[in-house]
């Protein structure tokens, strides 16, 4: 009985360790981002280069990905918090139709641009192997932070990391 309980405890501990919270970490790859030029939901083409001078969170996601959905509202709040301080979010949807994305946005509305990567071109160029994956590009166009997996974008430590890349608050 005791042996069984011990086994169960070890298994549960391993399960917790395996689930592991994802942390927004300093990016260790080539800091020069791959090209990102995709059609937005409204039909306009957006390029990462258009955002030079701003800190940009590039998020790769899909409507069928539960962690992607879960982090979306906190990403919207981060967008609202720093929008006037030179911060932007570009959410790159992976391979879904415009109708699927629009239907999702009626349930989880966001005000940042949604880009459509229908053929996975950006996904491969940015070496995205898990959803969601997020990169934070600084005002000089260099990738500074990255993470795969769900992030609580309301978390103070996450906000502090983003804020450290932004110009000082004039207020």
């Amino acid at each position, binding site marked *: 009985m005791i042996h069984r309980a011990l086994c169960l405890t070890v298994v549960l501990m*391993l399960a917790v360790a*395996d689930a592991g919270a994802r942390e927004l970490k300093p*990016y260790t790859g080539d800091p020069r981002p791959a090209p990102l030029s995709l059609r937005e939901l409204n039909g306009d083409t957006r390029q990462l280069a258009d955002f030079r001078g701003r800190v940009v969170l590039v998020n790769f996601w899909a409507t*069928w990905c*539960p962690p992607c959905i879960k982090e979306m509202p906190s990403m919207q709040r981060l967008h609202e918090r720093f929008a006037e301080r030179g911060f932007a979010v570009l959410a790159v949807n*992976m391979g879904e139709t415009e109708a699927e994305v629009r239907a999702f946005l009626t349930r989880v509305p966001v005000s940042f641009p949604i880009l459509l990567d229908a053929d996975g071109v950006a996904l491969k160029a940015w*070496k*995205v*192997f898990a959803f969601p994956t997020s990169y934070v590009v600084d005002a000089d166009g260099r990738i500074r932070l990255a993470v*795969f997996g769900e992030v609580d974008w309301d978390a103070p430590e996450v906000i502090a990391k983003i804020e450290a890349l932004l110009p000082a608050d004039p207020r």
Partner: protein
Amino acid sequence: MASGESMNIPRDQWWRDLRRPTPAGARAAPSLMAGLLLSWLVATPPAFADSARQIELRVAAGVEVPVTVRAAAGGILVLWLPSEAGQAEGEARVAAGLAARGIEAWRADLLSARLLPALRSAMHEIPAGDVAALIEQAAGRSGKRVVLVSAGLGAGPLLRGALVWRARHARSDALLGAVLLHPNLYLGTPEPGKDAQYLPEAARSDLGVVILQPDRSPLHWYVDRLAAELERGGGRVTVERLAGVRDRFHFRPDASAAETALAAELPARIAAAIERLETGRKP
């Protein structure tokens, strides 16, 4: 024709025979017929093998692997190995569906045999020798050709075991190949911006493989790259993309209608994949 269908025909036939008007000479013996029928029903096991039985196979000293067997009459035996999700209930339904198509299905609980948890990390702890021993016993006991099946990270121990088995049985054709559901053969999930690296056994494998890859998956975008890696060892690899479903669709608690529908179709999809392994046809 699937054996389950062919075996239903005699049952329908005797029912029709019972309802047919009885010749006058035979009217004297209705109770005898009913008695014989009752005896047959009690004494004869169901022709369609829809019930599972448990066996234990010793794969190493002191290591017994519980195996759930769905017997069937055909010449193929599916040896289903666990993934990081362990043994899912959805897989039991697929095994039953395979047996109904004449494909014997053995689900081996390699994790509990080694007291391993159903976790990603456990997939690296399954000894290749355990899998090789299972293949040996499955082929030896049944006399059938074995097809390995697993999902996700279960593809790693599957390939490692197949390599060990192949080294021991270089001239045998008892191992037909593998059907891999959304195989994940990455050394680890690559950090953002880093290139993916595959487990070394991916390039060493010479197994014939059919990959069933849902398109609502990050793995979907790289499946051709994985297929090329698996072909480096000389095996023929084909990829079937599954539209509108996610990885683990056959046992997801939050399955969509499309996923539930495809899960019901999975035995037929696996049967078709096995046929491709037998004929060497591309889809």
